């Protein structure tokens, strides 16, 4: 079996067969010796799973799954422009071993009040240990579609050695990688170091000794084919875009066809639930003001006020939750909630809607 091994001096591919221990580069005459330290930077490309004639049906099939999209897309969608582009991804496997010694934290507890300790004192202690990890880092390495492809998992089954001629034969356009293997390896190293740094931070207050041993196991550059599509929906002149992973058939991202009726329906549902919870809130406020001091009991344990609060509480809760479900589904991941940042609009999802 022939293996793709590159020259450690000029990175040109070497003609190398099983059992060979030495190979001389035909370009720069560097003698490469193979022992443990064989250079295994590899460059691959993936085969097409979705051919040009299947792009339209893949796109239409995915668009029709979106609620509110009209069925006439199936017959009326026109592909205006379609490009096959090969985008670069690095896959790097890195192993790291860190032996560390230092001063860590511990605690002592005092002031037992019969139920538990009310005081804590932090103390220090000597600690040592080892972190030993192997991780795989996959990184997209171009500025083109960088937002869209940040979260995309590539399928890498059926790799072939990279061949620019073959890509050109298929009518593909090669998008060159932004950085090189060195940078990809460095990024992987940074990622593992960050992980170890975080763990070390958990364990130690002061690091006294740290012996690090990081080693790249393998690093590969893979050019993955994508279909960059420009399409028109029936009766609308403005072109829309889509990006389809041609190696797996997954629609990475697509503009959504216009669906006004559905959006009106969706907004009305949201309004219905929001208004219902506001009404509930107002009624509750009214009862609360009027019955605020009331000591009327509907049963032995439950006062009238408590009962009213419970009933309207459910009503408000239901309204708020339902409207948030609908918002989440209608806008997909465009609306994201984080504890720190509150609600945030993002366009990282598979489908995006132009707010026209």
């Amino acid at each position: 079996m022939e293996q793709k091994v590159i020259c450690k001096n000029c990175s040109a591919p070497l003609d190398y067969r099983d059992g060979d221990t030495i190979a001389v580069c035909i370009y720069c005459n560097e003698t490469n010796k193979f022992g443990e330290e064989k250079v295994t930077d590899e460059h691959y490309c993936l085969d097409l799973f979705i051919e040009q004639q299947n792009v339209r049906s893949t796109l239409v099939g995915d668009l029709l799954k979106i609620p509110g999209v009209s069925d006439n897309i199936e017959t009326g969608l026109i592909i205006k422009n379609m490009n096959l582009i090969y985008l670069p991804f690095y896959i790097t496997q890195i192993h790291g071993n860190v032996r560390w010694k230092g001063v860590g934290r511990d605690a002592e507890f005092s002031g037992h009040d019969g139920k538990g300790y009310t005081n804590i004192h932090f103390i220090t202690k000597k600690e040592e240990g080892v972190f030993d990890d192997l991780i795989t880092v996959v990184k997209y390495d171009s500025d083109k579609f960088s937002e869209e492809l940040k979260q995309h998992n590539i399928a890498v089954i059926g790799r072939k050695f990279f061949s620019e001629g073959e890509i050109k034969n298929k009518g593909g356009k090669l998008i060159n990688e932004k950085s090189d293997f060195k940078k990809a390896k460095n990024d992987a190293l940074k990622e593992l170091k960050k992980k170890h740094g975080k763990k070390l931070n958990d364990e130690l207050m002061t690091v006294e000794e740290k012996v690090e041993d990081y080693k790249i196991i393998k690093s590969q550059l893979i050019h993955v084919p994508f279909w960059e599509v420009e399409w028109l929906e029936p009766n609308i002149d403005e072109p829309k875009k889509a990006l389809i992973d041609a190696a797996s058939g997954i629609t990475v991202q697509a503009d959504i066809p216009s669906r006004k009726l559905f959006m009106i329906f969706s907004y009305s549902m949201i309004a219905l639930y929001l208004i219902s919870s506001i009404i509930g809130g107002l009624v509750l406020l009214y009862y609360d003001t009027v019955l605020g001091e009331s000591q009327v009991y509907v049963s032995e344990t439950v006062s009238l006020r408590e009962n009213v609060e419970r009933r309207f509480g459910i009503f408000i809760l239901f309204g708020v939750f339902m409207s948030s479900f609908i918002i989440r589904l209608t806008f997909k991941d465009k609306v994201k909630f984080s504890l720190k940042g509150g609600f945030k609009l993002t366009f990282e999802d598979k489908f995006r809607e132009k707010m026209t």
Partner: protein
Amino acid sequence: MSVTAMESSCPTCSATSPVNPEDVVIACNYCGTVYTIGKEKIADHNFYQPKYSLAEAEKKIYKFIKRKTRFRGFNSYGGLKIRKTLVPYWVFLAEVKSFYNGYGRYTRTETKRDKDGNVVSQKTTTYYERRTGNFEDEKVDALICRLGARIFGLDKLEKRIETMIRTKPLQPFNQKELLDDMDKISFLSGEITSYEAKEMLETKIQDEYRLKAEKACTELFDCRTHVNVKNMVFLHYPIFIAEYTFGAEKYRVLVDGVSGDVIDAEIPITTRLRVASFIMLLLLFIVNINYTFIQPIENDNVTAMMLFTFFALFAGYKLTNLLFGTVSRGS
């Protein structure tokens, strides 16, 4: 740069098998021997006999989709494409010893009431306690032997394999048994060596236990996890990957080849189903109004109220998903 046709000769029978450049663990297409690119045989190579032939699996999926889409309009179903694949896994039996030490902070509120039940005073106290944990577990873990893998329903498959290994003994790999099955079956060779797999497993388990410890404590002081791999084998696990069309849309199904169960499937949401969900959602809204405004206010059944709230939220969530979602999942 030339593209080389890749072939590898088997150390047992010398037959050549086509291989992909990324393969590091290769299965011989003739005698089934599994070996590394360095021609080192992997002795412990196992598999499970697929339960169904392609035709049987096709029937099974047909029935499944028919059952799931009974009320959605089954007529649009068609164009089933199915593939039988053996997916490579490294399977581990590992002994895990883990210890953590940290502290936890919690508060307790005491409320004093007078005879009439009115609140007189409230006092909140913060308490601290040591939190430690000591685990000794025996884990069965399956790690897919591919560097990048995009198989529909992969996460569910992994859990399935882990339980399958515990209940059903592994069969030593036997190419003949597979050849008896006349269907075309595709092998995936492995991309991760045993050394890499072992290291990756250790990282995975250590991260898992550290996360568990971090969740248990306000602050974690120490966490040590030791993984001892007692046994590791190479397993080819059979799956059926299928794609069917529903009108112009394409959907995917993953079937566990050993038990024959549908593990994960995309099921279309049709207009008919969306209309039905909308009507149900309106009904739920009306019931909610009735419960809040119309029922006599003296009705103070708290348990009924709680149950209704849970039901309404759950049903509301499900129905909203059907009304506004793109595709539903089922197994």
